[in-house]
């Protein structure tokens, strides 16, 4: 399967990819995007199976990315990996169609819990 990781921080993209590896998903292909706008382009070009996105990004936020994706009819499973996880944000994420919201810092077990049903 192909996993798109969208985050404006290169180090956080690497940490997310490393955590995927630690969670046992190292046989999946990962692709990266630096913001929501690039994320939309990568979805069109690469058709990922799962999207993991930061919330707060330049150009287009993670929430805008998700909303535009759903408005275009794309239902690729989408989860947030972000630095905060307030109840309000979790509600906004769920309303927009996100499968989950993982707040930093996180560990491999958290990824397994949320991604297990999506990645097998």
């Amino acid at each position, binding site marked *: 399967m192909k996993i798109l990781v969208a985050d404006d921080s*290169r*180090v*956080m993209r690497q940490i997310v990819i490393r955590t995927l590896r630690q969670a046992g998903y190292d046989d999946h292909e990962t692709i990266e995007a630096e913001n929501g706008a690039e994320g939309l382009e990568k979805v069109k070009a690469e058709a990922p199976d799962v999207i993991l996105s930061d919330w*707060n990004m330049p150009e287009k936020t993670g929430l805008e990315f998700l909303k535009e994706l759903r408005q275009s009819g794309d239902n690729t499973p989408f989860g947030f990996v972000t630095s905060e996880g*307030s109840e309000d944000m979790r509600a906004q994420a769920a309303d927009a169609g996100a499968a989950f919201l993982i*707040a*930093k*810092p996180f*560990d491999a077990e958290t990824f397994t819990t949320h991604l297990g049903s999506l990645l097998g």
Partner: protein
Amino acid sequence: MKTNTNQAEEFVMLFTEALRNIFNTLLPDLTGDEFMMCHVTKVTQPSMPEAGCCATVDVTGDHYGSVFVIADEATANNFSRIMHEEDNPSHEDRLDAIGELVNIVGGSGKALMEGENRIDLPVTLGFGAENPVMLPSKADVWQVVSPLGLIVVSTVMHNVTGE
């Protein structure tokens, strides 16, 4: 009704716990070493490095203010090495690593605040003798003593509504 003083004291207490949780989750996870633990203390006179990397993120809304993360060059390099998995990170890598730390720390701080608040994108800069970094006089300051070096965390927060 909580007074501003009570709110500030409660924020400091909760933020101290949040910092302990962040660094004592992050470092063992990044290094694979469960004993990679940090000691977090609230201080009045921080040991400010003479040169290094600084990152700040602003919070706006019902509260406004800033969160800072400051590290000397060696500490920033150590964090960057484990976060980027690179033996020789560049200065931009070091700034990126400290920027991500302030993003995580700032996000936790915002989560402790009541009301509607937003967190901006992190801003990073290198500092040294010619462009020293100085914290605001009313800042709350914490020191995070880690096996990778000393990190200074600071917050300056105001409640816009005054409640």
